[in-house]
């Protein structure tokens, strides 16, 4: 059987976090609008005679993203009309950018390598530009990023559709890659990194379930070793990473099957049916793609001068990649550990906050944050930025564990207490009497009692069932409410058990 490889390109539509819409002064916070059709005006509902005016902030944010993605910012860029009819598009055209987008020719390095083929030939894509290092990933070329406006929201009813124009005209940035990716994993890696960057820049919340970030995947397959680009299909409106990966994987398999059966792939737009987990054809009309782009006559061109672009560049924060490298060197973390912490800016900031207040090694701070802290906020579906525990408190808590004032299990108890009721860790230790006890006399008493109370288990242990030891340690922790120093307890337990063997 022929071996195939996939050719994947991604388009990302990201709403930009502005106060007002792209071309009018209506609030862009449509998600928190009190009622449908309340953030509307003649411009964003396409009333006759209304005219657009460009939102300065949106231009700044688009520039910021372009710079973060190593793009050329086009000093001269223009708006264009994309003409098509749909009830969520009030003017019958979408104002977008076409021939001259705000940003072009950038790249983003990802960790997932391109396993089956060398990088596609082309600008910015020769192998020498791959990030250095063993098993390193690949460079995804960004073809362009352009500004456009979002559409209204359509709710499909049984025999009708309901239109809410609150979202119509919200600024969008569309980021388009070259078809550089060869695996679904690479596409997911790229998408995840773009999301992180957008969040770092404060351009987008990254809340996929609210639809502020949407993917489109262009997919084709070809036999490994072939250089040709075969007909591609486009899967629209992928609103989650899960949908992105499942739909892409499905479509790759589908195309391979078609070729294997001697069929051909037709260029078409597909939708992803999340329930049946299949891609479905969305339109076959031959006129569907004739968008009749032309320069938007209602908007003069943008002419961004160098100095202004540099002033935006100066606003670029440290991005995930750079932060990861810094964490590795500065905190002696493993790359994987650092990458986890920098996956979200709020998390990285929190980590650094704790490290700066703590006397413990950064590695210890990392394991507490990656472990108990994450478990808690995941269980509570809490956002890192909403965590009520001040980094100082968390630092104090970790330091008490490091200097053995308390044991690890007491630490967990205190962390839960900090999350739910707040307070000072030292105070909680006192109030709840959680300080660790290393006093052998006290622990000996407890161990002796447990052995006396559970003769059957002692017998089992002596008969060779060593796992029972762990159960006994648990009993000790329970009896002492976790205060007993586990090292001391274990030593004494083993000693007493050996005595009984005799």
């Amino acid at each position, binding site marked *: 059987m022929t071996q195939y490889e996939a050719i994947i390109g991604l388009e990302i539509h990201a709403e930009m976090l*502005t*106060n*007002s819409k792209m071309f*009018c*002064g*209506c*609030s862009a916070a449509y998600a928190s609008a009190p*009622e*449908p*059709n*309340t*953030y*509307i*005006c*003649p411009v964003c*509902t396409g009333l006759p005679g209304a005219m657009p*005016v*460009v*939102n*300065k*902030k*949106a*231009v700044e944010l688009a520039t910021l993203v372009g710079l973060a993605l190593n793009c050329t910012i086009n000093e001269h860029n*223009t708006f264009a009309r994309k003409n*098509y*009819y*749909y*009830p969520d*598009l009030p003017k019958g055209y979408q104002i977008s950018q076409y021939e001259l987008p705000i940003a072009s020719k950038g790249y983003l390095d990802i960790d997932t390598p391109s396993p089956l083929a060398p990088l596609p030939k082309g600008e910015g894509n020769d192998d020498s530009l791959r990030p250095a290092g063993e098993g390193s990933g690949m460079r995804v070329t960004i073809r362009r990023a352009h500004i456009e406006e979002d559409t209204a929201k*359509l*709710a*499909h009813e049984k*025999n*009708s*559709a*309901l*239109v*809410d*124009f609150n979202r119509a005209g919200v600024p969008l940035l569309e980021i388009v890659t070259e078809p550089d990716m060869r695996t679904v994993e690479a596409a997911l890696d790229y998408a995840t990194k773009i999301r992180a960057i957008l969040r770092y820049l404060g351009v987008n919340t990254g809340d996929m379930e609210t639809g502020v970030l949407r993917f489109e995947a262009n997919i084709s397959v070809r036999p490994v070793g072939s250089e040709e680009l075969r007909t591609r299909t486009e899967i*629209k409106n992928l609103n989650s990473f899960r949908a992105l990966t499942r739909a892409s994987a499905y479509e790759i398999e589908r195309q391979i099957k078609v070729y294997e059966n001697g069929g051909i792939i037709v260029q078409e*737009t597909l*939708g992803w049916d999340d329930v049946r987990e299949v891609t479905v054809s*969305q*339109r076959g009309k031959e*006129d*569907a793609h*004739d968008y*009749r782009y*032309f*320069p938007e*006559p209602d*908007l*003069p*061109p*943008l*002419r*961004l001068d160098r100095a202004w672009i540099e002033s935006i560049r100066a606003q670029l924060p440290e991005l995930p990649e750079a932060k990861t490298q810094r964490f590795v060197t500065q905190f002696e973390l493993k790359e994987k550990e650092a990458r986890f912490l920098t996956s979200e800016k709020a998390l990285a900031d929190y980590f650094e906050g704790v490290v700066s207040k703590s006397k413990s090694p950064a590695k210890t701070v990392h394991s507490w944050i990656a472990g108990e802290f994450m478990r808690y906020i995941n269980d509570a579906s809490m956002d890192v930025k909403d965590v009520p525990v001040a980094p100082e408190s968390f630092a104090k808590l970790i330091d008490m564990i490091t200097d053995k004032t308390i044991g690890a299990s007491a630490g967990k108890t205190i962390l839960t207490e900090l999350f739910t009721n707040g307070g000072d860790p030292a105070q909680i230790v006192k109030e709840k009497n959680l300080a660790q006890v290393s006093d052998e006399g006290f622990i000996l008493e407890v161990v002796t009692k447990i052995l006396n109370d559970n003769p059957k288990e002692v017998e089992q242990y002596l008969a060779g069932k060593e796992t029972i030891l762990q159960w006994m340690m648990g009993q000790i922790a329970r009896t002492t409410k976790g205060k007993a120093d586990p090292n001391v307890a274990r030593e004494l337990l083993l000693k007493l058990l050996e005595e009984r063997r005799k």
Partner: protein
Amino acid sequence: MTQTIDTKTVKHVAALARLGITDEEAEKFSGQFSAIIEYFNMLNEVDTDNVPPASDIANAENILREDDVQPSMNREEFFKNAPKTERGYVKVPTVLGDE
């Protein structure tokens, strides 16, 4: 370059522009369009090899507005002209297929 705009082409552009059209209309427009396009082809006489398109020329550049929220329009006011509304939404017939 002479080209006739046949009824098929007329129907195609009518569909692109979402204009309902009858066969008789397509017939009528086809003849008129051919004459008009023929007239437009006069532009082919002009050498424009090194001429930039005028769409790049504007009265102004960088006309930007501050990102301030302005009061929106009253929904009832908006709905006064809307043919069909329901529960605060503009109502349209079923939407089949994508755009």
